[in-house]
């Protein structure tokens, strides 16, 4: 039996974990905590009780913040290893898994000793289950670590994670002021402004604008990367983009290896020329 912790019956990553589990075991049982206040260690204790009663061969969760956190607690309580963000796995003693490293820039093949196997499913490793799923709602014991309140953030404009167009600047922009041309193009296209880690480390843009392994993961229709060399840290955040247009003066820049379209040139000249051309085409 495979036991799967789902965050919700319509949560995309949870539905992927369900599809993944069905590829491993015919008997898949789902548990969730409904609308209960999130309490990672408390939820883990309730799942451990299920494990002790049901003796699953594998315990899975989505490779989300909460999925990884709850499974880490489950494995810590059971004193078992935990394989986070797996793209494939085979149950056995030991089990063998392939899991994501470096935000997806590298994969690891590993052996996991001890049963049951505790793992999470890497986002987008498989397509989500398409049928309606039914999860049993568990009740967790009280725990001192629980969400006290949710503070809503009010953001102006298009959010980076959801934008259809993202225009980003990297070290090549040269200064905070240099982003004016990036902002102008993003606004013309109804998109969001992004940047690389070099830019946030320099203090030119807030961290909320960072696209990357330790920033925001984006999945726009087109990503326009200006003056960005294409370090793995950055590419881990934009590999969900459907199309990538890179503008860089260095024809050897590694970003061109992942790009669909390339413009070899200085963004300070190219980007304003694109904005002017858009205005011309629109007759504004």
């Amino acid at each position, binding site marked *: 039996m495979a036991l799967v912790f789902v965050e919700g019956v319509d949560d995309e990553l949870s539905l992927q974990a369900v599809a993944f589990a069905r590829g491993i075991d015919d008997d898949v049982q789902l548990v969730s905590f409904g609308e209960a206040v*999130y309490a990672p*260690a408390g939820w883990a204790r309730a799942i451990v009780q299920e494990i002790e009663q049901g003796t699953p061969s594998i315990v899975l969760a989505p490779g989300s*913040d909460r999925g*990884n956190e709850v499974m880490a607690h489950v494995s*810590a*309580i059971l*004193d078992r*290893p*935990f394989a*986070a*963000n797996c793209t494939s796995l085979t149950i056995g003693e*030991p089990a063998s898994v*392939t899991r994501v*490293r*470096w*935000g*997806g*820039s*590298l994969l*690891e093949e*590993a*052996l*996991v*000793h001890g049963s049951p196997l505790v793992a999470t499913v890497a986002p987008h490793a498989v397509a989500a289950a398409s049928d309606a799923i039914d999860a049993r709602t568990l009740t967790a014991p009280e725990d*001192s*670590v629980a*969400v*006290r*309140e*949710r*503070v*809503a*953030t009010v953001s102006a404009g298009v959010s980076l994670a959801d934008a259809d167009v993202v225009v980003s600047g990297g070290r090549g922009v040269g200064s905070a002021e240099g982003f004016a041309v990036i902002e102008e193009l993003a606004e013309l*296209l109804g998109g969001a402004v992004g940047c690389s880690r070099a830019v946030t*480390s320099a203090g030119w843009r807030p*961290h*909320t604008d*960072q696209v990357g*392994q*330790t*920033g925001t993961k984006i999945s726009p*229709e*087109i990503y326009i990367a200006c003056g960005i060399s294409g370090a793995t*840290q950055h590419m881990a955040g934009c590999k969900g983009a459907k199309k990538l*247009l890179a503008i860089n003066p260095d024809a050897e*820049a*590694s970003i061109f*290896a992942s*790009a*669909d*379209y*390339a*413009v*070899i*040139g200085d963004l300070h*000249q190219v980007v304003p*020329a*694109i904005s002017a051309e*858009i205005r011309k085409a*629109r007759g504004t």
Partner: protein
Amino acid sequence: MNVLVCVKRVPLTGGKIVLTEDERAISTRHLGFTVSPHEECGAEEAVRLVEALGGSSVVLTLGPPEAEEQLRDMMAIGVDRGIHLLTDGSEWDPQATAAAIVSAVRGEPDAFDLILFGNESADAGNYQVAIRVARFLGLPCVTGVKAISVEGSDVRCEQEVAGGRDVYVVPMPAVVTVKEGLNLPRYPSVPGRLRAKRKPVAAVTPERSPSRLEMVRLVLPPGSGKQVEVLGNGPEAAPAVVGVLEGLGLV
């Protein structure tokens, strides 16, 4: 206020990852090293908390002798001293790592009020060492934190979630894992670097428990297979770019 921050030495990978011949590590012949980005913010936070509230800050790493460089880097931005859990450079799994950290923490004369980790390491991304350490020590643990404030004997933590921030208030001592964006780490000054050279580092060689998450080999994911279309050089490429944007219905 005694704060411990745990960091990991990782290569600065640049644009293209090349593996060693045995496929068990990244070839670092041409690479520098750093700490994971989340952890750099953890060290900055430790320094800020001690600056504001008094006490002392300690940085711990588990890694080869060369990882002393990362301890000195963190001491250069203001951490007071270092603990170096020495390894032969081979990778320790999360359970062995957590056990070694726990025994180092227990060996300290003064208890830590706060133990900070990065939410996940840049390289292995196992998302669990902090949670295991908290469990061993019987401490509360909050993860993925982007704002920390000390309120009396409690610590208030804000965690970024879709649409807002979840707030946790837990009693100290506590384990907290942080994410980049928590703060903007300062650059080390020249005097800071000089002072760091004289700060104490306690080196011990911990006992290693057998790996239960046992890396066999690393694999480079298949390439994108994309064939890049060069639209042109310089501003003359603008009409071709707009052609592409028109094709996507954006212009």
